[in-house]
C-alpha cells in the first residue's frame, strides 16, 4: 500500500463573504487511517468536507483527493471520485420518500446495473452491518435519530467506498448511540481498509478512535498529530488545552470584563455603580 496521503490541502484559502474560513491551510490526511478534524463550532469543519467532495472550490490553493485536483477536475473525473467516497451527513440526509432499504439501495440502483435480487441481497448485508435489518421497511420519519444515522451510514457504505467522510456523527446522540457509532466507525474502517475523515467537536469520542487529529481555530491549524502527540502539546498551547479540556472561555479583555460586569449588574448580583470607567481590578472584585 502506498504511504502517500490520501487527501492533501496545499495552502488553501477560502472565504464566505467577508468571513475568512481558511487562511493558507496545509493538511495531509493519511491513507487507511481515521483522521479527526476538530475545532469549535463555526471554524469551517463541514466546509472542509465540502471542499474534499468538490461541492465548493477554494479561493486559492489545491485540494487533492487520491491525486485528483478536485477544484480543477472535469465533471467526469469528479463524479468518478465521488463514486469512491461515502459521506455521513450530520442529520443523516435520508430521502424521506423512500424506505430505509430503498435509501440504501439508492446508490446501487443509480450506479450499477445489478439485477434486483442482487441489490436486495447487498442492502440486507449493509443493513446487517449497522445492526438495523429489522428497520428495512420503515420510512425515515419512523426512525429515531440514532437509527436514521445508522441507515445513512449503511447507504454511505453501499458502493464500498475507499474514503468515508463523517460530519458531526455524534451530535445529538444519546450515550448508547454514540457508543454504537464509535464501534461501527472504528470496526468498518479496520475491516474495509477505509480512509476516514471525521469532523467533530466531541473531543473524548473523536480522540478515542482517531489515529491522527487536526485542530482548527480562527482559519488556521492550531495543532496536529496523533492523540498522544496532541496531549503532549497541550501544556504549551493555551487554546488546545482549553479546547481539549472543555474549559470555559474566560475573556480577560477590557471589553469582555465590561460585558460581564453589565450582565452581573443586570442580574442584581453586584450593586450598580455610577462610575463610567473602573479599573480592571475593581471590576473583577465587583463581579466576585
Amino acid at each position: 500500500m502506498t504511504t502517500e496521503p490520501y487527501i492533501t490541502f496545499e495552502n488553501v484559502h477560502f472565504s464566505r463573504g467577508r468571513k475568512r474560513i481558511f487562511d493558507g491551510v496545509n493538511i495531509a490526511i493519511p491513507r487507511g487511517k481515521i483522521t479527526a478534524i476538530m475545532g469549535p463550532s463555526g471554524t469551517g469543519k463541514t466546509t472542509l468536507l465540502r471542499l474534499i467532495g468538490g461541492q465548493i472550490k477554494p479561493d486559492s490553493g489545491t485540494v487533492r483527493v487520491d491525486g485528483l485536483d478536485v477544484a480543477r477536475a472535469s465533471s467526469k473525473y469528479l463524479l468518478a471520485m465521488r463514486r469512491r467516497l461515502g459521506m455521513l451527513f450530520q442529520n443523516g440526509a435520508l430521502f424521506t420518500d423512500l424506505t430505509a432499504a430503498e435509501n440504501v439501495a439508492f446508490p446501487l440502483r443509480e450506479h450499477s446495473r445489478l439485477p434486483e435480487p442482487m441489490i436486495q441481497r447487498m442492502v440486507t448485508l449493509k443493513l446487517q452491518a449497522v445492526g438495523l435489518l429489522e428497520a428495512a421497511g420503515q420510512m425515515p420519519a419512523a426512525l429515531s435519530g440514532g437509527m436514521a444515522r445508522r441507515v445513512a451510514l449503511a447507504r454511505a457504505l453501499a458502493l464500498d467506498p475507499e474514503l468515508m467522510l463523517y460530519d458531526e456523527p455524534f451530535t445529538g446522540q444519546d450515550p448508547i448511540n454514540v457508543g454504537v457509532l464509535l464501534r461501527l466507525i472504528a470496526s468498518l474502517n479496520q475491516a474495509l481498509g477505509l480512509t476516514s475523515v471525521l469532523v467533530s467537536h466531541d473531543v473524548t469520542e473523536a480522540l478515542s478512535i482517531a489515529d491522527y487529529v487536526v485542530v482548527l481555530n480562527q482559519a488556521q491549524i492550531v495543532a496536529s498529530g496523533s492523540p498522544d502527540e496532541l496531549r503532549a502539546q497541550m501544556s504549551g498551547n493555551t487554546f488546545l488545552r482549553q479546547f481539549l479540556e472543555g474549559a470555559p472561555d474566560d475573556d480577560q479583555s477590557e471589553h469582555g470584563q465590561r460585558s460581564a460586569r453589565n450582565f452581573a449588574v443586570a442580574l442584581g448580583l453586584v450593586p450598580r455603580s455610577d462610575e463610567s470607567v473602573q479599573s480592571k481590578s475593581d471590576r473583577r472584585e465587583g463581579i466576585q
Partner: protein
Amino acid sequence: MNERQNGFPNSFLRGLAALGQGAMAAAAHTGQMVMFTGHLLWRLLPAWTRPRLIVQELYAIGVLSLVIILISGGFVGLVLGLQGYNILSKFNATESLGVMVALSLVRELGPVVTALLFAGRAGSAVTAEIALMKTTEQLSAMEMMAVDPLRRVVAPRFWGAVFSMPLLAGLFSLVGIAGGYFIGVVVLGVDPASYWGQIQQQMQPVDDVLNGVIKSLVFGAVIGLIAVFEGFNAEPTSLGISRATTRTVVLSSLSVLGLDFILTAWMFGA
C-alpha cells in the same frame, strides 16, 4: 428646522436607493433563473432515460390535482351556462349557448384558470418539496453520491408539470362544457341538439383546440420552471421555504396572465 428642510430630499434619496436595490435584486434573480434554465435544458432529454420517475411525477403533480381541477371546471361551466343564457336570451340566440361555453373554455378559461389553480396546488407543492430536500441536505447527499439532482429530482418534476397541464386543462374544459349543458339544457330548457350541434359545427380543431393545447403547454412549462427554480434556490430555512412557495404562486400567476395576453394576441389577434 434643518432636519425638516432635509427631510424630503433624504427620504426621496432613500426611496430611490431602495428602488435601485430592488431592481438589482430582481435583475440578479432573473440572471440566476436564466443560468438555471440553461443547466436544466441540458438535463431535460437525459431525464427520459428514467421514464418511471417522470410517470411518478405525472401522478404526484397531475393526478393529485384532478379533484380541484374537476370541481372548479364544473362550477365555471355552471356559471358560464347561466350568464351565457341570460345574455343570449336577449338576442333570441340561446341555441348558441353550447358554442359560447365551449369556446370560452377551450380558448381561454380552460388553460388560464387551470394554470392558476395548478400553480397554487402543484407548483407550490413542488417548490416546497425541493426546498425541503435542500434544507435537509438530501440534494447535497445526492451530489456527494455522484447523482445529479438536476437530472434526478428537478427535470422529472418539470416534465411532470409540462405534460399534466394540457391534460388537466382538457378535463377542466370537458367538465365545464358538461356544467354548461346541465344548467342550459337540463335546468333552463335549451335544445340539446342545438347545444351539441353548434359546438360540432363551429369549433375548429386547429384554431380553437390546438391553440388551447399550446397555451396550456406553455403555461405548464412556465409554472414548472418557476416552481423547480424557486425550490432549488430557496434559502435553506423555514422562512426561506415559505418565501419560495409564495414567490412560486405569485410569479406563476402573473406570468400566466401576462403570457395569456401575448399568446391570445398572437393566436386570435386581428
